């Protein structure tokens, strides 16, 4: 009995700690969670590889905040950003209004900015080409002559600083029939004629798909969102070949070209890496081979990443959760505090928790974003604590007073009573808590993809972005499968760890 339990524990610990993959220590490229950013990341990656540098592309890490923090923390070395985002968001409130002063401020923080890559991905006002031609509308000012046009804008644009209110003022637009709606819905309404004018992003693949004319911003109302590369100041010194290779992108990408690349990926479902390789071939005449990843390759990668997230976070949850549960059962006051604390953790939204944890993880020198992210592991650890702590506490409190009294009257010390009597008697409830914790953990681990930690959540998120149900299933099915496997393992564990006398009592 004792040796068996010890053996089980040993196997679990070994499984949880044996490294499954070595950490990549070459330069890393990051990308945000949208198609264009991923393609730009792949372009940089392929260029570096052509220059003979092995790099890792940490794909779809998250939004601006996460990428920029990761860059500053040295988690990634380079990613593509937009000048408008730099001045309006990253350096907001620091009185930086143009790209050149932004360059200087960033340089002080050890971050360099490339020259513009050549395209602007900003806001524009769009109309169906035929309608615009019929009405003779070429510039935004021209809209003033047609007060009956119906406008539809994304909700964000309706109240952004550079959105509709200021646009209306800048051009003195008279239209009154203006409503907020989902961006994709707006495209469809534009197509069927319910509305005639909407805002677009200048490199949206949909612009070509729907045949949209972008009106000239003749009063320069919209800020420019010129794509640039942001990279760490020491990159030129550390990886001169890569540095030179990636800067070859400067001034090479036009809006039309990028729009076509986006369309390839978004509308024709060509993998981003292939889209990038094709561009390098046609534009620079580079012969870039991209081995086609099979579904199985991806499955194994995601499985490895997912297991990596689950096993360490779960082991930590057990190592901390069981003692906390025991403490909570033995000290009712502390118990209230402990149970309340682990309960509150459950109510924190996953993304918020992940983002909050990135900074401390990075400052401890742990990988904070990307595969094996300490922030993701820590968040998962916190999420799986509740069932473990609560069941351990409930299980121990559920041991009858009679039996606890008998054990005490036998002269056993508190520690011996816990080990020999109370824990075995509570084992069923404790194991049920571990099982719930593990299954929750497998499910929650899909959220790790929110900060690029990979796993089954990755295809799910990408699938949502590309509206590709196949990809969504590619993540959802194995995640469900893994939950079943975990359930099975715990059913086996029940047999090994719950004393026979208790299992008889159940029958």
């Amino acid at each position, binding site marked *: 009995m004792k040796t068996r339990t010890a053996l089980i524990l040993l196997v679990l610990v070994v499984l949880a700690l044996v490294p499954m993959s070595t950490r990549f220590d070459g330069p890393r490229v990051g990308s945000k969670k949208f198609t264009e950013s991923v393609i730009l990341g792949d372009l940089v990656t392929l260029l570096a590889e052509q220059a003979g540098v092995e790099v890792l592309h940490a794909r779809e890490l998250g939004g601006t905040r996460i990428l920029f923090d990761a860059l500053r923390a040295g988690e990634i070395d380079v990613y593509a950003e937009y000048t408008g985002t730099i001045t309006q968001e990253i350096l907001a409130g620091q009185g930086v209004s143009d790209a050149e002063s932004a360059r200087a401020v960033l340089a002080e923080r050890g971050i360099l900015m490339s020259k513009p890559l050549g395209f602007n991905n900003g806001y524009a006002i769009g109309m169906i080409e035929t309608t615009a031609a019929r009405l003779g509308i070429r510039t935004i000012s021209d809209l003033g002559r047609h007060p009956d046009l119906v406008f539809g804008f994304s909700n964000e644009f309706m109240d952004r600083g550079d959105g509709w209110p200021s646009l209306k003022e800048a051009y003195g637009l008279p239209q009154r029939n203006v409503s907020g709606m989902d961006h994709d819905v707006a495209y469809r309404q534009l197509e069927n004629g319910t509305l005639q004018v909407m805002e677009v992003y200048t490199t949206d693949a949909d612009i070509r798909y729907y045949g949209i004319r972008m009106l000239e911003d003749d009063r320069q109302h919209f800020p420019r969102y010129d794509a640039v590369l942001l990279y760490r100041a020491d990159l030129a010194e550390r990886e001169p070949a890569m540095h030179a290779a990636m800067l070859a992108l400067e001034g090479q990408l036009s809006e039309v070209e990028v729009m076509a690349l986006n369309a390839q990926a978004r509308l024709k479902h060509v993998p981003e890496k292939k889209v990038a390789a094709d561009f390098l071939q046609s534009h620079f005449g580079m012969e870039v081979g991209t081995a086609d990843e099979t579904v199985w390759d991806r499955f194994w990668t995601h499985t490895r990443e997912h297991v990596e997230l689950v096993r360490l976070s779960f082991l930590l949850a057990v190592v901390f959760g069981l003692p906390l549960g025991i403490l909570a059962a033995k000290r009712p006051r502390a118990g209230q505090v402990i149970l309340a604390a682990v309960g509150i953790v459950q109510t924190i939204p996953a993304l918020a928790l992940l983002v909050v944890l990135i900074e401390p993880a990075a400052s401890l020198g742990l990988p904070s974003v990307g595969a094996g992210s300490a922030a993701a592991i820590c968040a998962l650890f916190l999420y799986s604590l509740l069932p473990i702590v609560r069941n351990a506490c409930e299980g121990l409190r559920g041991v009858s007073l*009679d*039996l606890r*009294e*008998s*054990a*005490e*009257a*036998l*002269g*056993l*010390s508190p520690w*011996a009573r816990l080990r*020999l*009597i109370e824990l*075995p*008697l509570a*084992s069923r409830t404790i194991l049920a808590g571990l099982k719930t914790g593990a299954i929750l953990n497998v499910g929650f681990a899909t959220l790790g993809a929110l900060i690029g930690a990979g796993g089954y959540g990755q295809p799910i998120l990408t699938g949502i972005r590309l509206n590709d149900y196949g990809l969504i299933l590619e993540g959802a099915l194995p995640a469900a499968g893994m939950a079943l496997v975990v359930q099975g393992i715990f059913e086996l564990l029940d047999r090994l760890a719950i*004393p*026979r*006398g*208790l299992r*008889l*009592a159940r029958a």
Partner: protein
Amino acid sequence: MFELRQATRSFAATLAVDGVDLSIAPGRTTVLIGPSGCGKSTLLRLMIGLLAPTRGTVSFDGVEVNPASAPDLRRRMGYVIQGGGLFPHLTARENVALVAAHLGWERSRIKDRVDELSRLARISEDVWERYPIQISGGQQQRVALLRALMLDPNVLLLDEPLGALDPMVRADLQRELKEVFVTLGKTVVMVTHDMSEAAYFGDIIVLMKEGSIVQSGTFQELDQAPADPFVTRFIRAQQSLTAS
């Protein structure tokens, strides 16, 4: 053995034990008896130190029973709670051997001691390997008693050892138990609410009511020279029950 001085224990508003003075003589069997809820179990718990008195003192062999001294003193006491209190996750043998094994006794020594106890209480070999749920109520009581005897304590504290048994088994076990007490010559404090059982076992009978001792003495003394009308009422009530 035990000396109780004004021992009192209250739970919130309930006075479970109220100012009890009692000394337990060595080598004799003392029976605590009284109506349900009069504080018998609580008194036993005070003696083994599972509860601390809210007032007064309890001492064992001249040492005050308190949280510091209790763990050591308990090695010299065997206690069987109301209902036996066998651990359901351990077999009968493991239940009995638990503490000895924890104290590091050698296997052979444990086996010899369990064999010895087996003869004392007539437990067959196959019962030893079963779990509590798989053995009868009478056997459970025997095993619980043997668990209390394993370390050869100086005193046995038994809370209604024959409580929930059917009359036939009960009669058998009464005889067996008496035999054990006589053979071992141990000090026994035993709780019951049955007067004939008290008369059968008790060298001294302690009759309690609402937390206090009404009278203590031999059955003859209680029957012939009752200290209070309650004593006679209690004895009569039980006799009329037996008669009907």
